[in-house]
């Protein structure tokens, strides 16, 4: 049984939208779904393409580089498994591969990117959360992995050495 922070980590063999993601992660590759017909990359797993309805897709490797688009600092262990981590950051990462594709001709000013949620962890130790003072919108990050066993790993993000995409911002709290 695969465990992570005392929790059972169960990826069903028939969970076609998740299984490959965590298996590729064990090879330290970050994958997203790519529509086989229109080429849209999907930041969130799904069974069909929101752009063209195609049901055909493949796993596409991405660089794992991106920018913090938004963040939160969790100061209370709402999940008991994270008691040893508080305060910890959860980040919404804008991946480099697909930025601001107009949705439905952008009639409503809506744009689709490829965004992933993960923790921001220490550059030298993905099992430790990054200090909250270092978390800011606009900072550059790269993927890293926590190996869970010999089959599955959990992607995380850490600050990279690249300069920020724009002036970093974090709330004055």
């Amino acid at each position, binding site marked *: 049984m695969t465990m992570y922070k005392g929790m059972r980590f169960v990826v069903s063999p028939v969970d076609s939208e998740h299984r490959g993601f965590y298996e590729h992660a064990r090879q330290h590759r970050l994958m997203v779904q790519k529509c086989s017909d229109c080429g849209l990359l999907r930041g969130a797993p799904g069974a069909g393409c929101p752009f063209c309805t195609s049901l055909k897709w493949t796993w596409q490797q991405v660089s794992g580089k991106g920018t913090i688009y938004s963040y939160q600092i969790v100061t209370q262990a709402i999940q008991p498994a994270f008691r040893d981590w508080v305060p910890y950051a959860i980040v919404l990462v804008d991946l480099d591969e697909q930025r601001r594709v107009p949705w439905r001709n952008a009639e409503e000013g809506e*744009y689709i*990117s490829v965004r992933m949620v993960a*923790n921001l962890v220490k550059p030298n130790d993905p099992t430790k959360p990054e200090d909250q003072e270092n978390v800011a919108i606009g900072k550059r990050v790269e993927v890293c992995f926590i190996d869970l066993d010999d089959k599955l790993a959990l992607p995380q993000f850490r600050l990279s050495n690249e300069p920020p995409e724009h002036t970093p911002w974090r709330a004055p709290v």
Partner: protein
Amino acid sequence: MGNLKDKYCIVGVGETDYSRNSGRSVRALGVEAVRKAMNDAGLKPDEIDGMLSYHGNDSTTAPAISHDLGMRLNFYMDCSGGGSSTEALVSLAIGLIENGNCHTVALYRSMNGYSEARIGGTPAAARPAAATITGPALESLSYGLSSAAQNFQFTFARHMYEYGTTSEQLATVKVIHSEHASNNPKAYYKKRVTVDDVLSSRWVVKPACHLLDCCVETDNATCIIITSADRARYLKQRPVHILSVAGRVGKPFQGMHYQCDPITRQAGYYGSRIVFRQAGVEPEDIQLTGCYDAFTFTPLLLFEGFGFARPGEGGDYITSGVMRLGGKRPNNTSGGHLCEAYTHGMNMVIENVRQLRHQADDSCPRWQEGIHTYDHREGGCRQVKDVELAMNMGWAMPALCSSLIMRR
């Protein structure tokens, strides 16, 4: 709703005490709320033939409640749902009456939201030692992302970054709603608080949720009853007419709405078109609002989404005083989820029904006759003077809203 405008009414409302220790089953709570709404409307059990409820596997069922009150139903449905479900079920109730399945529909929500099933997680004593993470939860629980405050926080933080929205502006929502709650004998938190009280309460999730930015958690059941305007005329209360309703209106990319910019846009952007067009009114016409205030940030985003404030100017709307009792358009005059009780949306609709009857149940000695002092000081009156038109704005998440416009 087009030609259904003014054809349906809310004729009865009821609720249990708002507490943190009901000491009773959700069935016992639910029966009491439905019975109170039935009596409020002056209906007999055999005059209610439809029942709708929503739940998160934490409630009781319509067959149980109708059994306990001796009702024989022609339709019932217990839906999975949370925030924004109240208005959605109002919409379904109208459809059931319109298509001839029923003539009078009770809708309720019953929950021991503090003592049994808390929204942010079950009480510590009841937590299993090791959780299992599987399916879509792999994308969130693996990262310690589980509660509502966390689910919305990316939107809140991005709004603070893009528009300079401040913790002080957010705290003002709690301050104003606490002022309103101080004039509501039913409210769980009746004490008025200050901006400093909010800012000095402990953090739950940064950068937008101190403890006092989060709503109260309570045990309670709530109920409203809907029937046609034709029947409403013969019932006990002055009917409150439904001008329009929108239930669970979404943004695109519901699976993970953070893929889709602008993430600071609330789904009210879409819902507003339905409710204002069908009611034939504009935001400027609305005299009273009820917003789903799960957090201090949610009314701000609803005001922007539904067009009461321009994008990014929700903070100014809040601090302008417009939403305070005595202001141009008071909001959550009962104290809402932040102060009165957490009912998953229904108590704000109940409050607006009572306001439109001019029967806000405050400390004015003759409130039941609609006679008020309009002295809104602490412990005093909370009736909005001469209110004719009210609106509810429901929230389930940034990408999902609901709404209801009602008139006296």
